[in-house]
């Protein structure tokens, strides 16, 4: 044993010196290396997990917002459909009302026109008759050379009119 110790040059002074060296190094590295590095690693871990959590929360909130939006959209679409439906109905109503009103008006107008037309016709035929009578009288006077009596005139007129009509 002693021989081994001597062969390898083991000296308590060196052992002690190295032990002291190691302990000093341990202390210094703990202070200057492990503590700050582990601290920053821990901090980073916390930051990352917090950001991940935040991201998840944001995602959830977004999901909720999207769902709400969808709900609102569906509701709006329903309302719009309802509005369009009622609008269509009332429009139909208005149109059909207008139709009936218009047809009534038209009938009335046609009736009026017909009446005025027949009146006109009556008037015209009377005028024509008078004119024709006049002309006939004048023609007879020219041909016969005598004025027709009132009675003859009437008689002739009647006869001519019959011919014209028939």
């Amino acid at each position, binding site marked *: 044993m002693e021989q081994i110790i001597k062969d390898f040059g083991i000296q308590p002074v060196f052992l002690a010196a190295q032990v002291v060296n190691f302990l000093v190094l341990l202390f210094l590295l703990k202070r200057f290396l492990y503590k700050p590095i582990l601290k920053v690693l821990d901090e980073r871990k916390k*930051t990352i997990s917090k950001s991940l959590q935040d991201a998840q929360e944001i995602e959830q909130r977004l999901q909720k917002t999207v769902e709400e939006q969808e709900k609102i959209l569906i509701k709006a679409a329903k309302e719009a459909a309802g509005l369009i439906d009622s609008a269509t109905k009332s429009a139909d109503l208005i149109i059909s009302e207008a139709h009936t009103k218009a047809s009534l008006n038209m009938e009335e107008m046609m009736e009026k026109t017909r009446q005025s037309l027949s009146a006109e016709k009556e008037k015209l035929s009377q005028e024509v008759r008078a004119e024709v009578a006049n002309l006939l009288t004048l023609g007879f006077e020219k041909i016969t050379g005598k004025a027709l009596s009132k009675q003859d005139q009437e008689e002739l007129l009647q006869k001519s009119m019959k011919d014209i009509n028939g």
Partner: protein
Amino acid sequence: MESHIVLTPEILGYMGSLPVSNTLLVSWMVMGFLLIISVLATKNVQLVPTGLQNLVELVIEGIYNTVSELAQEKTKVIFPVVATFFLFILTANWLGLLPGFATITYKNLPLLRSINSDLNMTLSLALVSAVITHGLAIRYLGVIDYLKKWFSFNPIFLFVGLLELVSEFTKIVSLSFRLFGNIFAGEVVLSTVAGIFAFLIPLPFYFLEIIVGFVQAAVFMMLSLVFMVLLSEKHTNEH
């Protein structure tokens, strides 16, 4: 260039009554290097990391996750110790591969020597590991439960406990000699190969040593971690 295979560290001089060996000098350099890196990396810690902070975070987080998988609620206590083991040993191993180690001489002695090719250094690391392991066990179990691990009134369990006690010393020896053996052998291989032909041929061996340096640091860390976790665990299958 004579290749010297010396097991003992060379003493360069005395600082007061403290002998300063080349390995001790290098271990101070390693400490200084680690300190500078950590101060630079954490001088201006930001939530969005850049540059050196990024690299350091990668390493620290990797070690932290490894430790927390095994240690769970004891991570906060165990992590700084085993992480320091890892960083110190890894830096020392890789720094020992730099040119200038074992070639620059001072008073005809190599000025720089890879730390872990000196048993003093690995043994002290193993001792620290063992002391902290047992300290943690006492802290988490209490003195009574801790002593119950080794001593029992049941003769069979007493025998087993005594064997386990012996194995605790074996752990120190295995931890220190594993690290020492690997790195020392690496140094010898490198100097031998460089003695044969100094150009290109040592290159693959340097790659090998880079891997060995990392693996040994990781092994030391993992073993310390496992010992600490196991020893500070409550004996549940007792009787």
